[in-house]
């Protein structure tokens, strides 16, 4: 069998694991997740035919962000600020050094 990477990008793997972990910690039922995710895929798929890689995980990410902001686990503004903080961290960290927030 030709070996294929299980996840095409590291963030696909992180996002997958994060979702599975939250489900197992009892934050949402998997059936609820599948329903929401299916709805997002359908919505995203109206504009273009989604591939099973980045497109698929973009829909996954949008679903999880919405779910967590709805449950109050993560506020939308806090997510935006934290994303900006990580971006700033990458931009100020010399290449090869570990990227940290502080």
């Amino acid at each position: 069998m030709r070996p294929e990477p299980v996840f095409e990008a590291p963030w696909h793997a992180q996002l997958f694991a994060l979702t599975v972990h939250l489900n197992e910690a009892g934050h949402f039922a998997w059936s609820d997740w599948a329903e929401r995710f299916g709805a997002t895929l359908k919505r995203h798929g109206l504009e273009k035919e989604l591939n099973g890689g980045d497109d698929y995980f973009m829909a996954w990410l949008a679903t999880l962000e919405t779910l967590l902001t709805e449950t109050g686990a993560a506020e939308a503004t806090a997510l935006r600020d934290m994303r900006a903080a990580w971006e700033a961290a990458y931009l100020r960290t010399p290449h090869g050094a570990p990227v940290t927030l502080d």
Partner: protein
Amino acid sequence: MGGKGGLGLWTIDGGAAHDRVMPHDHSDHDHPHSLLPPDPALRVKALETILTQKGLIDPAALDEIIDTYENKIGPKNGAHVVARAWSDPDFKAALLENADPVLAEMGYYGRQGEHMVVVENTESVHNVIVCTLCSCYPWPLLGIPPGWYKSDAYRARAVREPRKVLAEFGVTLHKEQAVRVWDSTAEVRYLVLPKRPEGTDDMDEAALTALVTRDSMIGCGLAARP
């Protein structure tokens, strides 16, 4: 690397002579700073950081989950089940009758494999698995689904024109062979028991396992010939 950074920039060249932002610069400059990950990767990091700070997740658990699916769980598990079913008629009968206790006994249960149904390919029926809603898939037996299983193209076409899809996978069926498409859900997941290839009568279970491909257990392939 796709050009979808949130700010539309990838590289800031730090040299004094050209100290300027270079949008969509994909060339092989030295990177004075770390390469900025794509927008979704930053959003995932943001989620992780916030949830970790709130004590809602354990980062070590994430690594464990990734390691499990990258290295430990995969189609080998399903192949083991299929090879045993080919070798042991009683096991096969029990598996087709009620898969859950049989799989639990083999240790293949849990996460997205809570309720399994095994469907057998025969001379008269060829089974195919899809998830039209999202990408439900028997993780304990097959691991994480391949990209094509998750694509819109497969999810829509497997139901609409399964014979054509199968032909594209290189599987041509007899006219009299019916195709059954099983739509997986969060509650029920399927595994195809492929036909045992000819010329394998003298092979033992271990040798047979090597013939069972992932795609054959989705129904988009046949077991390999020895």
